[in-house]
């Protein structure tokens, strides 16, 4: 429950962002004030910052089954995705990217940009359930394909992709093709062992698992050659220049550690709350469809199509009733827009305008969810 002034909100938009885990802010604070040093200096103040940065790198690496030097700190998930796609192909226009139609804009728009620059790109379609066929992905590769990018958990529907299977299919055809996964939505619920997933690159974003906004990570397997997106002082072994956000790295590492620790509880407890919410909606509202409901799905996403109810109307009423949810996809002004993810799953624009996303998080309680679903059912009854 989030309290701001006297308004009590039931917050069911954790896929957009989730509050910091307890202690994270406190762990970060010293690096904004007392231990403010630039981690690239040669004195005591600097060393203190550097120690914290490198310790954070080790902690993140441990959570991914990676080596510390394979961790690149970025300004968030968007930058990590950009580096993963642009880095391997920059400078050689014969090299390109294969990705999925349901990816986050950070991947899709980067792919479109590379296409405009003349790189070969291919966007693979998905099934009605949002699932992707590993062989279809592998079969979409061309001679210039350098990177295949498939997300672990979809941010709108929660559909889980079997990244290991995609990687195996890709590597069977050409082991030199790099496999990237945007695991931004997955950190709270999925085990992210980079060897088990078989990936060469993996993106994370701090604010999706209880860390700070503006802090992210790209895992880059040792030996992977990347042209940086940001050139400059050569930090992060030249892969990402810019004075380190030490506080951000500390916050991200602290939160990731907590999220990993909390993972099995999260799966059962938050998953149980989501399942109960879903069951009640299905019972209480006629004709509801769970988008992506047929295949493997994360425990904390729920994307519903409620026929005959326009999502922007429902979202406004939910907000007025103290429930924060989302359309999954919004433009800069906050207006709902037709979701490319749902369109890729075969929904018409009109159907996509009937879809709302509820996402649950580490703070969600059963009481909150019960109240939220009761409000939802009442409102739908009124709007129909």
């Amino acid at each position, binding site marked *: 429950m989030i309290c701001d002034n006297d308004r009590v909100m039931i917050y069911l938009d954790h896929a957009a962002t989730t509050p910091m885990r307890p202690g994270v802010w406190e762990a970060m604070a010293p690096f904004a004030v007392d231990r403010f040093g630039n981690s690239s200096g040669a004195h005591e103040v600097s060393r203190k910052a550097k120690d914290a940065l490198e310790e954070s790198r080790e902690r993140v690496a441990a959570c991914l089954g990676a080596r510390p030097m394979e961790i690149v700190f970025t300004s968030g998930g968007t930058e990590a995705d950009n580096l993963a796609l642009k880095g391997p192909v920059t400078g050689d226009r014969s090299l390109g990217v294969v990705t999925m139609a349901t990816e986050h804009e950070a991947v899709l728009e980067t792919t479109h940009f590379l296409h405009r620059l003349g790189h070969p790109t291919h966007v693979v379609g998905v099934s009605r359930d949002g699932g992707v066929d590993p062989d279809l992905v592998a079969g979409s590769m061309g001679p210039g394909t350098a990177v295949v990018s498939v997300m672990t958990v979809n941010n709108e529907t929660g559909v889980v992709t079997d990244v290991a299977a995609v990687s195996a299919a890709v590597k069977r055809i050409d082991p030199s093709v790099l496999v990237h996964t945007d695991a931004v939505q997955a950190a709270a619920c999925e085990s992210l062992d980079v060897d088990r997933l078989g990936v060469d690159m993996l993106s994370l974003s701090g604010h999706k698992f209880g860390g700070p906004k503006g802090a992210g990570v790209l895992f880059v397997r040792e030996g992977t050659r990347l042209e940086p997106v940001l050139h400059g002082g050569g930090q992060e072994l030249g892969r990402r220049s810019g004075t380190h956000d030490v506080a951000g790295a500390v916050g991200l590492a602290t939160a990731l550690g907590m999220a990993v620790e909390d993972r099995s509880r999260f799966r059962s407890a938050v998953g149980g709350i989501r399942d109960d919410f879903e069951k009640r909606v299905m019972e209480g509202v006629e004709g509801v469809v769970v988008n992506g409901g047929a295949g493997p799905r994360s425990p904390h996403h729920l994307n519903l199509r409620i026929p005959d109810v326009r999502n922007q*109307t429902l979202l*406004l009423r939910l*907000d007025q009733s103290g429930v924060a949810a989302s359309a999954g996809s919004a433009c800069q*002004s906050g207006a709902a827009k037709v979701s490319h993810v749902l369109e890729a799953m075969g929904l018409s624009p009109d159907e996509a305008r009937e879809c709302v996303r509820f996402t649950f998080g580490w703070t969600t309680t059963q009481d909150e969810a019960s109240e939220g679903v009761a409000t939802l059912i009442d409102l739908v009854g009124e*709007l129909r």
Partner: protein
Amino acid sequence: MRAMVAMSGGVDSSVAAALMREAGHDVIGVTLKLWSGPGGEAPTAGCCTLSDAEDARRVAAALDIPYYVLDYTEEFREGVVSVFIDDYAHGRTPNPCIECNRTVKFDRLLNGLDELGCDVLVTGHHARVRSGPDGWELHRGADMAKDQSYVLSMLTSPQLGRTRLPVGEMTKTEVRARAAELGLRTAAKAESMEICFVGRGDYRSFLDRHAPSMLRPGPVIDHTGEVLGAHGGVGGFTVGQRRGLGIAAGEPRYVVSIDATTATVVIGRREDLLVRTVELEGLSTVSGRPLSGRVEAQYRAHGAAMPATLGGGLLHFDEPQMAVAPGQTVAFYESDRVLGGAVIAATG
């Protein structure tokens, strides 16, 4: 009472929201997203730009009212842009802002009030809603120079009953002063004049993208049929237009009529523009009852109302009028009270 304020990001709707809040109502602010470019981008000019939405959002935040952006791009494309293009295609003078007010801002929002959990719609128009013996009435705003009752002349009494126009009682100067007093960031903001989806007055590139047939070259002729010149497309010409005809003539020439089917622009002298009788379509009245007889008729947003007689789908002006063009809206008044409105189908 719960009020939904349509906030355009201008000073009038900002103050309207503030006044409703002061009056103790539950207020929410909404901005309509009506148009986006080919890449989904917000317009950069006109009344609905991204920076306008940002102004509206900031004003709502300052007033501590919930604020939403509602997407009505589909409705706008169908109800306004396609009509605009169609009007041009028929040589008519389109009136997209009136069409937008009617079909999107009022029709949609008023019909959607219950769904959105609100009782009344509030806008920043300079006009007044009053209750009269026959129901709700629409009157000119207190500030004659800024009066906008003309653009609302298609509203009906039941619609007016769910509409509040709080700044209609004020002059523009008072509105600005009030906004300044409240510290609203829109207090000194300039008014927008452009059509939001065309932007920067660039009709040609808009038509090029959306209605390329409007850019078919054709002849410029006079009333005898003599060809005086050529033009690059009827889109962009308006009856009464004088500049940009590309004709060197001794005396001033004006566009007298436009025939889009043959891509012909007819020009003539000033007196050829005089019109006494016009044919109307889509006549609607505030009261819902038929209207005929003596009226005062205003056919331009900022023109005066002229004495005329209405009957049988025709409007006869007492005195001939200049540059009355098909497609324009006519609003009928009795003194300050709006009786109804119609669209000019043809002039004769």
